[in-house]
């Protein structure tokens, strides 16, 4: 039976969604972190997911499952927000500061999608547990 593989698949998805939530939290926390140059300003981060089809370690007659892998966390290339704030202690010679290119609305929707996906995989694990338990009770009555 392939219950262990299913748990691994759901677990990998939960780990990937956790990374996604982590980047959202980091983006929202740093949304207002100003800086004096473009290079040192925080940029919005996003994880890149990929599926891993694994048939290894399985006996014959088993279909390949697909785990989720976080390939990389990439930085957004959107232009930074530039503001003229000469009174800001971080301002450069021209009196400008740079704000991160974090889109709060997009981050919030991303957060909702990530937590929903996480919950779905928790449901899968819960259902899997009950299936396994009733299989173990087979023949008891």
């Amino acid at each position, binding site marked *: *039976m*392939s*219950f262990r*593989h*299913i748990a691994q*698949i*759901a677990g*990998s*998805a939960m780990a*990937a*969604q956790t990374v*996604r939530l982590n980047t959202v939290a980091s983006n929202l926390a740093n949304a207002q972190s100003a800086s004096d140059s473009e290079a040192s300003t925080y940029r919005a981060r996003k994880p*890149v*997911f*990929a*599926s891993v089809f694994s*048939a290894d370690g399985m006996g*014959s*007659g*088993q*279909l*390949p*499952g*697909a*785990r*989720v892998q976080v390939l990389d966390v990439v930085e957004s290339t959107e232009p930074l927000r530039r503001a003229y704030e000469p009174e800001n202690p971080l301002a450069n010679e021209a009196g400008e500061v740079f704000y991160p290119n974090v889109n709060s609305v997009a981050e919030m929707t991303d957060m909702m*999608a*990530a937590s929903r*996906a996480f919950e*779905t*995989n928790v*449901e*899968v694990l819960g*259902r*899997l547990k*009950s*299936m396994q338990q*009733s*299989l173990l009770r*087979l*023949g008891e*009555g």
Partner: protein
Amino acid sequence: MSIDFHKALGIHQDTLRLRAERTKVLASNIANESTPGYQSRDIDFAAALQSVLSDGEAGQGLETGDGGLQYRVPYHPSQDGNTVELGVEQAAFSQNASDFQTSLTFMNMKLKGLAKAIAGQ
């Protein structure tokens, strides 16, 4: 006269194994809900069961490789090439879990019948 469990349990052991395999495929779909380019897959249960049954008494020949897998046609194709639709997958998953329980119930009934025969009641 000995009891042959394989014969006694009949089709239900094959359906149970297929249901477990299908659970894995559907769990993969749900897990890859936000993976760009992932294509949702599913087992054609009737065809897979037919191929298991036509293998005869060996009974171990569940379609290997991708032979038994088919790609799902999405209702709303998305820009990133991902064809997982969470509602569809969740419905299929819970339907499959219920069918798994049904197969288990049938097996339990078979085993109960065997126990009765052994006890001679």
